[in-house]
């Protein structure tokens, strides 16, 4: 009996002393932190993807609390909704940001881009890119090992076995930009989602002159400049034998799509055209997901 009482007393006193000590230390070395940081972090999605440009959600909330305006601070995963909540907590007006989406700018499907060699090494785009031009003759196009798929935290990317190219699931894509960083050939770009997700994209990054580009891939941009001529809004620039559509200037008139001789320019998510033009419609419909 005695033993039990003594041990209870000893343990109790030790516990009490330790608790008092801990309390004093905790008070002495207390870190003053704005409680709003925790509140902001609460409303952020917690994916820690780094899409906002900060190390993680905590870093973004700290930056938000410090900032005097939400300009340039945006969580691509949570979107405008989350930023509105953050604005409420901090008493700042949310800044409207256009939603973006990852776009794979390569249309070198297995059919269009014949294989010239077979790669037998480690399945990684980074390694393949370091070693040589890839399995096809196009030194700019998709390598197809799926580094971007592995980099995506949201399961928004998958490889299409038929085309050998990655496909973006726009519902799931948060435009965090991890795939952009993972791609050694800079094929993936974050582009403005556009009204009703409609947009015009040059699906090629080949900077070669027309002849070798076309030889390597039937769908390549050959830098002919027809789209530039036909564009009424100055949205298209052709540089290094490659056309680029500025999504801020593009008015989605689709003239460039018709002008492009290699069908490198794609109109995404547009409603089907008139029945007379059945052919191109099915094509764009099929590639709308890409």
């Amino acid at each position, binding site marked *: 009996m005695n033993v039990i009482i003594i041990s209870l007393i000893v343990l109790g006193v030790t516990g009490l002393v330790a608790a008092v000590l801990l309390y004093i230390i905790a008070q002495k070395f207390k870190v003053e932190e704005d409680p709003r940081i925790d509140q902001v972090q609460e409303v952020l999605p917690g994916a820690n993807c780094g899409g906002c440009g900060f190390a993680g959600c905590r870093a973004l909330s700290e930056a938000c609390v410090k900032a005097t305006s939400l300009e340039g601070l945006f969580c691509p995963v949570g979107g405008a909704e989350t930023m509105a909540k953050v604005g409420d907590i901090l008493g700042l007006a949310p800044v409207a940001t256009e939603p973006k989406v990852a776009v794979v700018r390569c249309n070198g499907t297995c059919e269009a881009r014949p294989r*010239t*060699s077979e790669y*037998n*090494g*480690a399945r*990684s785009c*980074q*390694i393949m890119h*370091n*070693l*040589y*031009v*890839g399995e096809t*003759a196009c*030194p700019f196009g998709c390598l197809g090992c799926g580094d971007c798929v592995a980099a995506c935290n949201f399961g928004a990317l998958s490889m299409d076995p038929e085309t050998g190219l990655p496909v973006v699931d726009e519902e799931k894509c948060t435009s965090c930009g991890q795939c952009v960083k993972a791609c050694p050939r800079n094929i993936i770009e974050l582009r403005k989602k556009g009204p009703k997700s409609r947009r015009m994209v040059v699906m090629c990054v080949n900077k070669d002159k027309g002849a070798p580009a076309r030889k390597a891939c039937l769908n390549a941009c050959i830098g002919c400049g027809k789209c530039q001529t036909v564009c009424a809004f100055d949205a298209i620039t052709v540089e290094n034998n490659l056309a680029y559509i500025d999504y801020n200037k593009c008015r989605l008139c689709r003239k460039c799509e018709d002008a492009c001789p290699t069908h490198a320019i794609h109109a995404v998510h547009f409603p089907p055209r008139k029945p007379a033009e059945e052919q191109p419609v099915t094509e764009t419909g099929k590639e709308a997901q890409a």
Partner: protein
Amino acid sequence: MNTFKIGGVHPQDNKRYSAHQQIVTCPLPEKAIIPLIQHIGAPAQPIVEKGEKVRVGQLIAKAGGFVSANIHAPFSGTITKIDTTVDAWGARVPAIFMDVEGDLWEEDIDRTTAVVRESQMEPKEIIDRITAAGIVGLGGACFPTHVKLLPPPGKKAEMLIINGVECEPYLTCDHQLMLEHGEEIIIGIQLLMRALGIKRAVIGIEKNKPDAIARMQALCSRILGVSVIPLNMKYPQGGEKQLIDACIGRQVPSGALPIEVGAVVDNVATVYAVYEAVQKRKPLISRVITITGKSVAKPGNYEVRFGTPLADVVALAGGIPEDTGKIIGGGPMMGRAMNSLDMPANKRVSGLLFLPEKESRRIEPENCIRCGKCVSACPMGLEPYLLSRQSELQMWDEMKQHSVMDCIECGCCQFTCPSHRPLLDYVRMGKAKVGGILRARAAAAKVAAEAAAAKNNQ
């Protein structure tokens, strides 16, 4: 001793196919493409124009910097265009295209086969001739030779080490060169010794070439300061740092150049080129390459001028064998599989190896079993299993800490791995990444230092 101390593997040497085959001179092609990047460093700058007639040995592209090399016309004929060509791995490189017409040489080049022994040249003159001739290390890295001969201030060369090891399996071009042109190589060694102002030179030769050892020993027996060291076989003995360890027992510190321990290493083929450049005024326009493989009809050693389409050389050796699965530029350990044979011969290509289909497939990799074989095989004392994993996880800073920049990419780790893991692929990628990061940091630091200096001056 007689070999390097740490690591190394023993691949089957397979030299029997092309060993002791007389060097055959490849006939002139009709058209030639001369790439302007045939060395480490800046690309050469073309100094000829379209339509210009050139003679063999005429300078057609000037070195684009200190670490760069001149390129001379390997053929006489007309320049048709200056454009880009695709190298064997698909990358675009600038090149000079020419039509070959006749075989008209520059007049001051001595084309006789007589051996010129006498030389009273000053060291500076020798180095100038080597620089002008565009000589690069023909052992594989293609580092401009004249850069090695001008040690940085404060460093003194003590020992010249000649690399006659040829540790790569299959390749035999250096072996044959020693047998056929041993005398010229010895003269070349004496020239290099004079250029560097040193008294001692050793020739390292592996023991699987007893005839070459005997020949070189007989030739240098009467020459003061030059000796042959027969070395036990082990790959990668031909690596600069391994060879220094094997020959003179000194270890090059991490991240340093051989000159740090007073050594200058040159390949026998480079030394032969030095002899030709200095004594015969013949610039580097050709080299001996080995065409080999189990099923090649006429494997052998062929002297080709740079710019000759490799397909022509292969035709000379009996064409591409039917069962070929992979064509490797260089040896099987460090060489790289080639995309096509459209590429011209150049200073970089030391051989073509035709591997049969069944030997050219990689075995499916399995999990690392932590056996540590790669660690004991690594001749640089690194931990390849760790580096490859770090590279997979993109841990660049950790890779830097684990000395990835010391990797010589010899492939011993991958060769020895019982799980057939692509260790070298990942380590090589990591090395490229870390190298890029280090260069970027150095550049940023330089900019910052300049900005600070400018601020202080104000």
